[in-house]
């Protein structure tokens, strides 16, 4: 276990955390402001990935593909809000869970019909492909550094949007007191549509970023959605700050578990037992983390103020 | 019996005694070194402008909130750390400002459930609760007492607003309390209904001690033995209705002419 390895694994953990944050941010905004549980959030992640793959192929350029895919995913989010989600705000969480579960089934099947079952990949521009030498004898994938950078920029942009702009003021007002926004004379329906679309675009962006590393695939949304839900629950539902910190913690814990758990287990048990327990434990790690957090703090680490 | 109400004339241990009660939300002080007591059989009214912390005080007393500091002695022991359910078992009952009943239960079931809660034996899984005379009988009697006898089989959610407020009191009474914490029992009622509620509460006087939070000054001055005025979580004055009516600070701070009238 060298120092370089630890640094590298930390970078890996942060990179995973950044992706999780992009997903969790939209989820937690939509929950905080509209009190809406959206299992279909992962579908935007998937749709964004497929859009980016397709547009990148058309234009022959990854960045151009993303530039086209972002508004497209935003549009899908807005359409879903207008057609299905809008009528659900007034319902209880159970209805949200069920209806959006239905949306998940629908989107997976739709993508299969449109793009086929095989999935799509994106070819990275040569400058991004490959790795770079960092100090201390660390080599690291350029593209993963790009993901970290892009994610941090979005986080910063989101921070500015929420804390420095008029729409951000409305978002904050809405998160702490829903009726108040209505009292301000704002077209609340419009605000909700915008926020939902924004959340969808963020999720889609995460999907676009991850596609050159993995690939666009049916069902990719559900797998990461559950982790993103874990993140917002740990962070405190409705809190962007909480989502960010919890996402990084989750990313780090998951990565560190995969990296060093086997070594740790070897110090306390036989190698056979460690070999069996290691993968099992590391796949359950984030759930254990969440259960532990909720046991001690049932409202998550950073419950939004006023709740 | 009437002399009971005038606490200062009779040497009686207070039933409820609050000392130094404080609670903050973020930077907002909702209760600030609050001192208060309620004597057995007394009606003690708490008034104050909106946002004075009246409901917070009730929530602290009934256990929905835990105080930052201070003691709440009830029937001899400190209950500040007790759960709402635990306090209920000691004889503390409350009504809520926003009607809090089991809307999808029948009127009788609402009260029977409260009877059951104090009968113990909640872990009976098989015998139909609705067939138990031990619960139904007392529940029906409480409903007669509050004048909802004819409504027994209606769905509670379908009652008129005033009747729902009555039911709320009935549910509280069914727990056979020693002290009733009433959060604006007259809220949203028309004049007639309010008058009936005042009459009803007056009929309970002496039998139960009450801590009454109310905006309706007619009701307060008609019912209260003592009044405490709350502003920004502080008790700024306390005394008999006459003393409060005469208190210049209170008039300035709160009882503007039109409201006092």
């Amino acid at each position: 276990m060298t120092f370089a390895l630890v640094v590298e694994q930390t970078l890996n953990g942060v990179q995973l955390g950044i992706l999780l944050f992009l997903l969790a941010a939209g989820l937690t905004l939509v929950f905080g402001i509209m009190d809406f549980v959206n299992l279909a959030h992962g579908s935007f992640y998937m749709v964004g990935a497929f859009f980016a793959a397709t547009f990148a192929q058309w234009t022959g350029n990854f960045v151009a593909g993303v530039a086209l895919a972002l508004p497209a995913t935003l549009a899908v989010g807005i359409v879903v809000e207008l057609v299905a989600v809008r009528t659900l705000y007034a319902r209880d969480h159970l209805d949200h869970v069920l209806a959006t579960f239905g949306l998940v089934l629908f989107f997976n099947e739709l993508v299969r019909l449109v793009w086929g079952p095989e999935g799509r990949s994106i070819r990275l521009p040569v400058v991004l492909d490959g790795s770079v030498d960092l100090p201390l004898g660390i080599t690291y994938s350029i593209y993963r550094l790009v993901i970290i950078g892009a994610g941090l920029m979005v986080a910063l942009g989101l921070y500015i949007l929420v804390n420095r702009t008029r729409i951000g003021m409305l978002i904050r007002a809405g998160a702490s007191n829903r009726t108040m926004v209505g009292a301000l004379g704002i077209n609340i329906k419009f605000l909700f549509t915008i926020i939902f679309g924004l959340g969808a675009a963020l999720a889609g962006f995460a999907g676009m970023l991850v596609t050159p590393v993995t690939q666009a695939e049916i069902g990719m949304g559900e797998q990461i959605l559950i982790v993103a839900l874990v993140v917002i629950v740990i962070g405190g539902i409705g809190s962007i700050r909480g989502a960010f910190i919890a996402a990084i913690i989750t990313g780090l814990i998951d990565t560190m578990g995969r990296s060093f758990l086997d070594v740790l287990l070897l110090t306390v048990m036989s190698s056979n037992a460690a070999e069996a327990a290691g993968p099992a434990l590391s796949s359950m790690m984030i759930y254990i983390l969440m259960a532990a957090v909720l046991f001690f703090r049932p409202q998550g680490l950073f419950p939004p103020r006023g709740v | 019996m009437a002399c009971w109400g005038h606490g200062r004339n009779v040497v009686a241990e207070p039933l409820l005694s609050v000392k130094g009660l404080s609670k903050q939300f973020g930077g907002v002080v909702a209760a600030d070194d609050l001192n208060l007591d309620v004597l057995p059989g007394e009606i003690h009214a708490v008034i104050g402008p909106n946002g004075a912390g009246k409901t917070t005080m009730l929530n602290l007393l009934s256990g929905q909130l835990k105080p930052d500091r201070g003691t709440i002695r009830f029937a001899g022991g400190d209950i500040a750390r007790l759960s709402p359910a635990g306090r209920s078992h000691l004889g503390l009952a409350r009504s809520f400002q926003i009607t809090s009943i089991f809307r999808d239960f029948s009127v009788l079931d609402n009260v029977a459930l409260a009877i059951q809660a104090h009968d113990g034996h909640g872990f009976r899984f098989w015998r139909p609760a609705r067939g138990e005379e031990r619960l139904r009988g007392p529940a029906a009697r409480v409903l007669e007492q509050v004048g909802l006898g004819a409504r027994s089989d209606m769905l509670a959610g379908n009652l008129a607003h005033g009747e729902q407020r009555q039911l709320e009191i009935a549910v509280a009474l069914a727990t056979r309390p020693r002290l009733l914490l009433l959060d604006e029992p007259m809220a949203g009622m028309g004049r007639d209904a309010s008058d009936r509620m005042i009459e009803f509460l007056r009929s309970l006087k002496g039998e139960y001690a009450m801590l009454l939070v109310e905006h309706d000054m007619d009701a307060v001055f008609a019912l209260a033995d003592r009044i405490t005025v709350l502003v920004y979580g502080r008790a700024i004055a306390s005394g008999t209705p006459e003393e409060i009516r005469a208190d210049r600070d209170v008039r300035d701070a709160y009882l503007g002419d039109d409201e006092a009238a």
Partner: protein
Amino acid sequence: MIKWIAAGVAAAALLASPVLAAEKIKIGFVTTLTTPAAAIGNDMRKAVDLALEHIGGMMGPLEVDLIYGDDEFNPQKGKQRTERLIKQDNVDLVAGYIWSNVLLASAPTVLEAGKILISSNAGPSQLAGKRCNKNFFNVSWQNDQTPMAMGEVLNRRGVKTLYIIAPNYAAGKNMVSGVERTFKGEIVGKDMTTWPTQKDWAAELSKVKAVNPDGVFIFYPGGHGPAFIKQYQQAGLEGRIPLYTVFTIDSISLPRFQQAGMEGVLGTSMTQFWAPDMDNPQNKRFVADFRAKYGSYPSFYAAQSYDTIFLIKSAVEAINGNIDDIDAFRAALEKADFDSVRGKFRFGNNHFPIQNFYERVVVKDSDGNWTTSVRDAVLVDHQDIYAKDCAL
């Protein structure tokens, strides 16, 4: 809603109106036609359709009536489809099955009905060993065999230190234990990753870099394979540490590698019982017609499915269509007297093939398409290790 149920029951009844026709053989073919795994199922279906075309829809005197069943990548659903094939569609025989878990769940339904079950891909160790069954046949391989061949390849290449990365599920563990069985060097690292959720191997690849082994062995079927190899490249490991794979690079994933321009995949070594360029007439016809019809190379899943149909055909012909004589039918199947795309082929006592395993490498064909090409036979006439536990 109740009307719907009634309508549903009625419609289902119509669909299943029993047709008594002795001149037909009804074959159920269970595979995955929805979910991302449908990529494999579709390839199998293409091969079966092609095989039926090649035999003119006839097996001896019998007309073939083939019914596909979708297992939805889920053992319970797969079992239900199998049940319907047996009890409602009254098939004479069931074939197909990609996944061990679907096969294990479904096998009792078929075998207890006294019918023949032929697996075109899944080969769980239970059914090869202790729980082998006279009516169960497998036309692919047993999970351990391919990685055992890979272990031999590693020995021949002089690999002394090996790092293993594989998914933490049954097949993944079989692959790992297979390699460990024949590999003579030292295993310096092993990561079993969460399946199927984990598609990012940053942490594992960092560890590989730190350990710097002679070789890395992986097993990632389906969409995971391309993702892994892409990340291997992005991490700067490609060209530095050779990658050895089983069931990770196939005809389904190669076009995607080519499309993504991942030249590093060329020359990658893997082991398999078959390759598209194996030199026998049956294989030549299969691969050429498959490419002509569908525009891509067939995968090994397709090859096995194609073989499945010809195996059944050979047996039906041998007993002259009298498939109700189950004992004769079984005996004819056991002979495996058909032209396999892999050339030589015979069944062992446990009804799993005894066959060669080859090293194959990724190459460009004459048109510039990426495909795999067969090299030396690594294991010759190899029988799986569980056969000795089979009482047949």
